[in-house]
Every structure is written in C-alpha cells, then in structure tokens.
C-alpha cells in the first residue's frame, strides 16, 4: 500500500511536469501572440518569457 502511494505520487508529479512543459513549449508562443494582438502587451511578454529558452546549440529545437 505504501509503495503504491509513493508510486502514484511520482506519477502525479510527473504528469504535472509534463503538462506544464507542454503548455510552456507549445502554447505559450501562440498565446502570447494572441495577447499581443489583443493589446495586452505586458501580459503577452510575460507569457512569452515562460517559453523554455534555447541555448542556441540546437537552433532552438524544442524536442528536449
């Protein structure tokens, strides 16, 4: 039972991490563009900043 609780906690935390990463990588750029078009510049730049920064080594590849 205790093993199951620990295992499910790890699964929940990982699911959260994956979802957040997906949102930051794929949803933040279009969302920020949309916000910019709506005139919410400050919020748009905050959202854009959430996109994981690339170190330039793989030309901004988002796969990792």
């Amino acid at each position, binding site marked *: 039972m205790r*093993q*199951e609780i*620990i*295992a*499910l906690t*790890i*699964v929940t935390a*990982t*699911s959260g*991490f*994956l979802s957040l*990463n997906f949102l930051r*990588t*794929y949803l933040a*750029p279009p969302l920020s563009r949309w916000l910019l078009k709506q*005139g919410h*510049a*400050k919020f748009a*730049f905050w959202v854009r900043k959430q996109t994981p920064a690339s170190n*330039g*080594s*793989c*030309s*901004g*590849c*988002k*796969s*990792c």
Partner: protein
Amino acid sequence: MSKLITQIKKTYDVALAGNPNCGKTALFNAITGGNAKVGNYPGVTVERKVGRALLPDGSTLKVLDLPGTYSLNSRTLDEEITRNILLGKHALEPMPKALIAVVDATNLERGLGFVLELRELGIPLVLALNMVDLAKSRGQVLNLEILSRELGIPVVPTVAIQKEGLEKLLAEVCLLKSDLKPAVLIDWKKPDQNQIRSRFAEVDRILSLSIVQATQPALWTERLDQIVLHPVLGTCLLVLVLAFVFQAIFSWAEIPKGFIESGVSWLGDQVGLWLGKGPLESLIVDGMIAGVGAVLVFLPQILILFAFILVLEDSGYMARAAFLMDKLMGKVGLHGRAFIPLLSSFACAIPGIMSTRTIEQRKDRLTTILVAPLMTCSARLPVYSLLIAAFIPNMSVWGPIRLQGLVMFGLYFAGVVIALLMAVIFRMSLFRGPKPNLLMELPTYKLPRLKNIGLGLMERSVLFLKKAGTVILSVSIVLWFLVSYPKAPVGAHEAAISYSYAGIVGHAIEPLFRPLGFNWKIVVALIPGLAAREVMIGSLATVYAVEGRENGIALLGQRLSEDWSIATALSLLVWYVLACQCFSTLAVTRRETNSWRWPAFMFLYMTSLAYLGSFTIYHLAVKMGLGKI
C-alpha cells in the same frame, strides 16, 4: 506597446559581420567563450547569437554574431536578419554601436567589398583579418599598415580557431569604445550597378597597394576536387562514404551497446532485489529503467553517426556533396541550396528547416521545408536499430558488408528517394516555377579539428541524456500508470494489461491500424512517440516490461520478435520512414512559415503517405509468407 519594446531592447555593443564561412562564429566562440556551432560550409549561422566578451580594461562587452552575407542587398531570410540589425530596422534587436568586420584572409577581394559597404554605414569598425595562418601557408604577404591606412580602420590579423590575435582585437575594440555614440537609424538605399562597380574598383586599388605577394591557389583542394566533384567518381565516392557510415553505426557500436544493456539490466535487478515486489518497484524497474534504458542503449550509435557528420562538415566535404547533388536536385525541382538543409535534417529536421532561410525563393523554401522531415533524423535511428536487430539476421552479404547495415542504408536511402519524389510532385503541383541556379562558395579542405568534434559529440550526448532524463523518463512514468491501472478484475481471463487505460485506448484505436499489421501495443507506443520519435522505444519497453516481467528488461528486441511478424516490423519501419511523428517539427514549420496551414498540410500528407506505404508493405510481406509470428 512601443514603450514596452524600448524597455525590453538590449544594447549590443559590438556585432560580428562578414561573408559566409569566413570564421565569424569561430571568432565569436573564441572571444565570448561560447560553443555555438561552427562548420566548414557557408550558411551554418542562420540566426543571431549573443555572448559576452571581457575587454582588457576589465569591462564587458555584449557581442552579437550575425548570419553571413555578401552584401547588405539581402536576398535570403538569414541575410535579411543581418541587414535589418545593421540598419537598426529589426523589430526587437537594437542596432550595434560598433562592428567587427570579419574577412577571410584567403578571400580578400570578396570580403573587402562588404567591409567598404559596412564602412559607409558610419558605425565604428575594426577589421579582423581571419585565417591569416592559411593565407600565409599559401604564400600571401600583406602589408597590414597600408591596408589599414587605405581602409581607414584598424586591421587585426586573427586565427579564430587557435585564439590568435584576440587580445589585440579586443584592445582595438576597447579603443573604439571611446568613439561609441548612440546608434542612429541609417537611411540605406540599394546601390546601383555603378556604385557596386566603383566599390570593387576601390577594393582592387586597395589590394594592389597592400598585397606584396598574392595567395597561391589551394593545390590540394584543386587536386582532390578533380575526384570528389567528378560526376561519376564523386558520386561513387559519396555512396561509398555513406555505406561505410551505416556499416560503422552497427558494427562499431556493438561493444558499448552491450555494456549499457548489461548496466541497465543489472540496475533493474538490484532495484528489484532492494525494493521487493510491489507497485513502486514496478514503476522504477518496468517504467523508469526499462523505458529510459531501452533508449539509452542507442547513444553509441547516435554518437557514431554524429562523429561522421561532424568530420565530413569540418573537412569541407559536405559542401562538395551539395555541389555534386545540385544536378540531381535540379531535376526534381529543388534548389541546390536545399542540400544543406536536407543534410542537416539527417541530424534533426528542426535545424534543417531553419537553415532553409538561406533559400531565396519562397516556393523553393516551402518545397524544402515540406520534404525535410522525410530525411532520416537521428531520433529514428533507435527505432530502426531496434527493429533491424530484432528481425534482420546479422549475416554477411559480401565481405565485411552485413545485411543489417545494408537494411539501415536502405531505410536512409528510401527517405531520400521519397523526399525527392515528393519534391517533384510539389514542384509540379503546388509550387510551379523556374529553378534558380546554385551559386555556392566551396570551402577549402581542412583537417577536422578534434576539439570541434569532441564538443559536438559532448553537446549531442548532453542533449540525448537530457531528453532521456526528462521527456522519455516522464512519458515512461505516465505510461507505466496507464498500462498498470485499473487493475484486472477478479477472475479476468485476459492479460491484466488489456484492462488498463492504455489497453482500453489501444484496443479502441487498433482497428484503424490493423490493416497495417499493428497490434494495440504498437498503437499505444505510437501516441507518446509523437512527442519525440525515440520515445516510442521507451514506451514499447514499458508496455512489454509490465506485460511480461519474466523475460527481463533488456531483451525488448527478443520480446518483439516473439510477438510480431516480420511483416509487422517492416510495416512499422515504413511508417517511421514516412510519418511525421514529431510535434517539434510541426511547431518549427509553423514558426518558419508563419502559418498553421503548412504544418497541417505536412502532417496530413506525411501521415497519409505513411499509412499507404505501411499498408502496401505489410500486405506484400504477408503475400510473401512473412506474416506469421
């Protein structure tokens, strides 16, 4: 809005500008301590890069590395980035306050033409005369004082890759600092023919005064090019080089692969013994270790592939291969410049798609972007390796040439052929138009630098391990939950995994893929495989590990060969050759085309092609009697 843009603008004090392949990025790396990608072919840098340099007076300087260009009269997207930044017209990048013009000392005439153009901008300028060692070895004697006097700017000889001349260069930049003024927008006008002619006449005048002894042609390069660029001999050599690379990927990786496999297996056993049977032990052994370990074993093969790519790039052979392929590419309607993006796509389609910025015409560029993901990227390598090792006998075909290596070569070759066929179709339907000629500067041959290769391999290893430790690990954990819960009801007749969430979803989608010979486990693994292709291996490993513990975690290949027919394996291989199993590729296509239309089209055409291809191969293989397990 404009106020905000002003706020987020950063001032780059110095920008590096020059012709393509003159060593700007090598100089940028040398003065900033960075490790941006360098290569011995034009068009490596297609985006601006930022770094920081320490000046002799203790102050720091922001340095901007710009894509190479022959003039401010830009024709391609990467050149446009350079021009807009230099003229202060870039939306978010401010204009540099000073410039380091980088010129290849062995190619002064072309380089100085651009320097004169930069001088006209009125931005404080220092000339870094790069690769002077190469020019000297070819007999060049240059009077730098006269050159500096005639140009009216400081000239510093440098050898960027050996970090020679950097102190003097930075000292000159330091002196320039006192002249730095607030950047003023420049009203630049496209020069007419007379202005261009007079600029090159000025270059000739300056060179006639400053050159004491001219550079001799690179004899070795000329001699080697007689073979390498020969239509028949050169093509044979290219095929031989590629065949050798694929043989090496299999044979050289065997020992390190075995070590990693044993290590992963040992770790799984130890964790199992330590934790005892239970859900946590299953999560760690069947989910994490099986999932990540199954992908990790392919690291040696990926590194071998990249080592070859880096050696070929550094030596100058890649640009020759592009030249050699121009005729063939022209026949299918692709621009000669498309070769480098397509070649980059062998590593990953994302930098490949980005490097299409060097292609002038939108139609040519779009054609290249759409076919680039068909080139076999390194993420496909683990899938190919696993299936080939499991289903193709490791027998010798002819001497050292083995069947597994040949099949791997065939899969890469199939990707290329289908990409070229699709290019023909696109050029005849969507993107009709004339094919422009290729104008490309061939670099001289150079000995590949060990440091460069080492850095490249280190970077690739870090990226691969990072991916294994983040995306693949996370997907394996989530997938473990999906294949383990809910548990099978009491008195269930089927395997417990069939009652799990993944089992339910897999069984629901399976009918769609049954004509291709895919079972529900493949379907379940294909879904997370959309995040990154190699994730599919980790997912398969988790599914099979949870389903059958008794076989151990390191024998995924053996489990697959027991569960799948050869027809199914061939069908899955064809699916992986053709399908667009990569979110990141679609995202970068959207960014580069500025529309969702093209990534949607890319996904649809590639998925349809994959379905059709897999269906055909599966049914052909079944007809040939390969459909039995």
